[in-house]
């Protein structure tokens, strides 16, 4: 069982856990990304997520399909939220259940890592001083070298 979605409503983590639960899958792993109050030392008041919706949905479904290939029989649900989010709001949730705990944990990690590399979603931080800025993981202090790797990979 696999389901992926880009949503504009709040994410209900408990509902995701219930969705992947099954008496045959003894290990459940959940990952939540939430909006932080500080990034690169700047005080954040909120976050605005925007996506290339059609492609983001496709890419997310593709990643889940790859996870299902790698982790046979995984139960997997992924939701990414877009729109205006407040501090502490959940932006992304990944729930994976499997008979083997290693696979449940690995599937969760695989999805979040791939999502961060490939899914066309962007975020703009709003700061205490009223300014706002698009986050570029390839140049920020918390640089994500994989984004560059990927640009090279498709070339």
């Amino acid at each position: 069982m696999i389901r992926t979605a880009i949503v504009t409503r709040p994410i209900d983590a408990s509902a995701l856990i219930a969705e992947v639960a099954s008496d045959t899958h003894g290990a459940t792993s959940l990952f939540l990304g939430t909006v932080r109050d500080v990034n690169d030392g700047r005080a954040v008041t909120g976050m605005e997520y925007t996506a290339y919706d059609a492609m983001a949905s496709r890419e997310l479904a593709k990643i889940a399909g790859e996870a299902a290939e790698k982790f046979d029989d995984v139960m997997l649900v992924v939701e990414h939220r877009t729109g205006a989010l407040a501090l502490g709001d959940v932006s992304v949730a990944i729930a994976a259940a499997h008979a083997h705990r290693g696979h449940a944990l690995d599937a969760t990690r695989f999805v979040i890592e791939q999502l961060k590399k490939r899914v066309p979603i962007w975020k703009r931080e709003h700061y205490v001083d009223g300014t706002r800025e698009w986050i570029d993981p390839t140049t920020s202090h918390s640089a994500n070298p994989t984004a560059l790797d990927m640009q090279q990979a498709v070339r």
Partner: protein
Amino acid sequence: MEVRVLLFASYADAFGAQNIAVDLREGATVKDLLAKVRELAAGHSLPPAPLIAVNQEYAAPGAVIRAGDEVALIPPVAGG
């Protein structure tokens, strides 16, 4: 042929538009498209090797663009 190129996030801000029209010869590639976009006023704001999607899939520089294709310039992704 005229191709409409979708823009998002920081690119949409830089170009001041959600999409731009680019005129390409038949058989033009992703690399050709990029060269055209760079000629525009906001073209200098693009990174050295921006990601491009054709029909909602990441495309290599040599990929050929056809009339009617959905083309998009993809800023560095920042989901999660």
